[in-house]
């Protein structure tokens, strides 16, 4: 976009009584924040279901087989909702951010194209796997799920490539406001991709593993201490707990790389107003007008973390003009701290279980462990959402770091507030309905704990079960 065109757009937006970028960002945050949870289930749940089915097939374990079958029913609901909320995001790329798509669509579209391929494979094999339980032979059915798990991971890589590209853009030349050439490999693997991709994929596995574990931890807390519940807990908790230390290592590496690649974002994450050495680390605290209220200051720690020495120079946000700094610094810092804090908590829960298993070959008995297990799913989801707040808020005011501002990218159409309101109301209903249906499934499973319990919707030969009719 030429500067003149951009300023023209901004003027036009201003003339219509306010820019649309703030409501547009709020709407994108709502829809992405909602979809990302479902996306995690799309990426990681198939692997966990396949793990359960694998144990069931290999060892003839009826419990894991039953769990796999039930999880796959829940997966059907989650994938369907994820498919439609993902479509909303695709449309929003143009409806909310036509400026971004107009200028950079031909660059960031390439990874999206690859993602489309994996989305295809995921949806096609989900159709086979989810509905093939009855008639596909055991191992054939298991193999039909493998492409879902694989394409979940590759699809995630493709989409994260776009976000990485927005954080550290490259791989193209721009002349007179037009893209003149594109280097596809550099677009697909920008500098930040090396840490963003594993960070998000591990996050997806943690979200799903701990969420699955939470469900059964709640059951165990309610006194259902049977083999079924402990198996369900283990199938979620063990993979997630194993991946947690790797995630913390990746996250730590990412933070150091962000200090180099996106210094202003890092400065906001760690409250570094001025470029300096011997920078302290702030735990919590709210930054207002040059003061940090309520935080714990640890001298030199930030410099130590960035460069392994107290003398390391850390770039502050004074390195750029005030207009180029993220608007709400405390939100970024607190989100970062919450993410790190929750990640550490989850690590401790995993270590606790590992220690007890090593010494006693059983799960920890204290109530606290099971309470931790019960909240671990929500904790992982909150940590992941906070991570997205950090990376997206921390890039502001840019949508493509250093090249295009979010205001330039936003639509010039009025009425984003209206669509935002509808989206918030609609997604609240959608989220509530999804959770209600999952709870309903779980209640139904508990009520008649048999594998052949009828799915109420559908069959015509059950006289008492009408089949989704519109009216009577």
């Amino acid at each position, binding site marked *: 976009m030429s500067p003149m065109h951009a300023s023209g757009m901004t003027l036009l937006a201003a003339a219509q009584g306010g820019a649309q970028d703030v409501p547009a960002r709020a709407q994108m945050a709502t829809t992405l924040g909602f979809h990302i949870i479902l996306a995690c289930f799309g990426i990681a749940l198939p692997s966990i279901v396949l793990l359960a089915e694998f144990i069931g097939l290999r060892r003839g374990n009826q419990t894991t087989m039953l769990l796999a079958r039930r999880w796959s029913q829940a997966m059907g609901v989650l994938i369907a909702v994820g498919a439609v909320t993902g479509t909303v995001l695709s449309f929003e790329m143009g409806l909310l951010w036509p400026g971004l798509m107009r200028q950079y669509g031909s660059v960031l579209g390439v990874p999206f194209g690859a993602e489309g391929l994996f989305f295809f*494979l995921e949806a096609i094999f989900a159709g086979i796997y989810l509905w093939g339980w009855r008639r596909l032979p055991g191992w054939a059915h298991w193999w039909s799920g493998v492409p879902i798990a694989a394409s979940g991971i590759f699809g995630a890589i493709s989409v994260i490539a776009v976000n990485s590209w927005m954080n550290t853009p490259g791989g193209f030349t721009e002349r007179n406001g037009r893209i003149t050439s594109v280097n596809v490999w550099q677009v697909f693997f920008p500098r930040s991709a090396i840490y963003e991709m594993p960070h998000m994929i591990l996050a997806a596995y943690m979200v799903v593993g701990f969420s699955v574990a939470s469900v059964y931890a709640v059951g165990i807390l309610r006194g259902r201490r049977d083999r079924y519940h402990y198996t369900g807990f283990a199938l979620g908790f063990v993979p997630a707990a194993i991946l947690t230390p790797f995630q913390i290592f990746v996250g730590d590496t990412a933070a150091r790389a962000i200090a180099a690649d996106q210094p202003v974002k890092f400065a906001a994450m760690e409250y570094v107003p001025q470029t300096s050495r011997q920078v302290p680390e702030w735990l919590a605290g709210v930054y207002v007008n040059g003061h940090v209220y309520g935080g714990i200051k640890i001298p030199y720690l930030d410099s130590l973390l960035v460069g392994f020495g107290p003398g390391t120079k850390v770039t502050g946000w004074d390195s750029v003009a005030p207009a180029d700094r993220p608007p709400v610094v405390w939100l970024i810092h607190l989100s970062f701290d919450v993410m790190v804090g929750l990640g550490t908590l989850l690590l401790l829960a995993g270590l606790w279980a590992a220690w007890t298993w090593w010494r006693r070959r059983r799960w920890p008995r204290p109530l606290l462990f099971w309470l931790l297990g019960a909240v671990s799913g929500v904790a992982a989801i909150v940590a992941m959402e906070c991570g997205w707040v950090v990376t997206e808020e921390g890039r502001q005011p840019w949508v493509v770091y250093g090249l295009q501002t979010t205001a330039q990218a936003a639509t010039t159409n009025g009425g984003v507030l209206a669509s935002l309101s509808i989206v918030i109301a609609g997604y609240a209903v959608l989220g509530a309905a999804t959770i209600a249906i999952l709870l309903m499934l779980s209640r139904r499973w508990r009520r008649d704990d048999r594998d052949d319990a009828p799915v109420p919707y559908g069959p015509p030969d059950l006289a008492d079960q009408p089949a989704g009719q519109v009216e009577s």
Partner: protein
Amino acid sequence: MADAVGAILLASVTLYAVLGGADFGGGLWDLLAGTTARGRAPRDLIDESITPVWEANHVWLVFDLVIFWTAFPYAFATVMTTLALPIWLAVAGIVLRGAGFAFRKELTRPSWQRAAGAAFAFSSLLVPFFMGTVVGAIATGAVPADASQASLAAWTSPTALLAGFVFVAACGYLAAVYLVVEAGRRGDRPMRAYFTRRAQAAAVVAGALSLAALFELQNSNPAMFDRLTARALPLVVLAGVCGLAVLALLTAGRASGIRAIAALGVAAVIWGWGVAQYPVLLPGTAVTLTTAGATQATFVALVVIAIAAVILVIPSFALLFRLQGRHMLGEGEQGPPSAGPVRSTGVPSAAHAGPPPPNHRPGSVTRGVALGLVAIDVIARRRRTR
């Protein structure tokens, strides 16, 4: 290269129309199936036909969007700005359709099932309608080259609204034709007759609406009309011939190949539109395939992705449709209730791994593979002529 990508976009739009469109059409017939008792049989058939495949079919829409914005970003941005309202409404419909369809299976109370079913059925009507108005608005030249404001007039012109109705009718037509074949395979004579009547009615309505839209186009965009009746005439004629052939076969009670012919008819309409517009993307502007903001490298990347799609996605689709056609994909833990032969044996899995009865085979493979091959062939031919 831009031409090749244009052809890829049109091919994937075509696949979305003939696969995803039929799923929307299923919702239309669900909506019109009447009261609980009367509508049970058709609703069951619709539900079982759509269940395992709708998500995969839906991905064509996402793929279309991605190709559109990657290859033709200027056109994409201005279309999304000018036609924001109908696109938002279509998006709302997509969410309601998918969520309603997925939820109603899992709900237990009839009243909730009805609510979810109604959401599914009504939104199945809205989505094709608003998408039709979007296409109609583009075809009439109502989208400027670089819009900064949404326009109500762009998509509420008679041509655009007619296009919306054409889309709804075409979806209903495709769905009814597919369901005739599906009912025939299951040996369900009443349902076969039921959907034969509806397919005939939809064929007549869709044909009449298409002709009306065509003549309305003569007023709203004469240049486009001229090219549709000159350069694109063979395709327009092909569409008409396919429609008449399907009508004739339905009346004669023959189902062999009608799905492919019906799909070919719809594809001919879409390709007629594409050929008439070529190389202009937004009629009435200077935005063409080559001047819409992408570079050669992007086009090459998209062609590579399309080739990968042909290698990976088309065989996967063929497998999905084939398993679906052989009734291997049953409802949850229940199995497809009215899948006659499969159910009566009561033996799961292995017993059905052998070759299916001969009448089960050709349709499902044709639907997946033939369409893909036709699309590839057309792309290849267009690249050669260039």
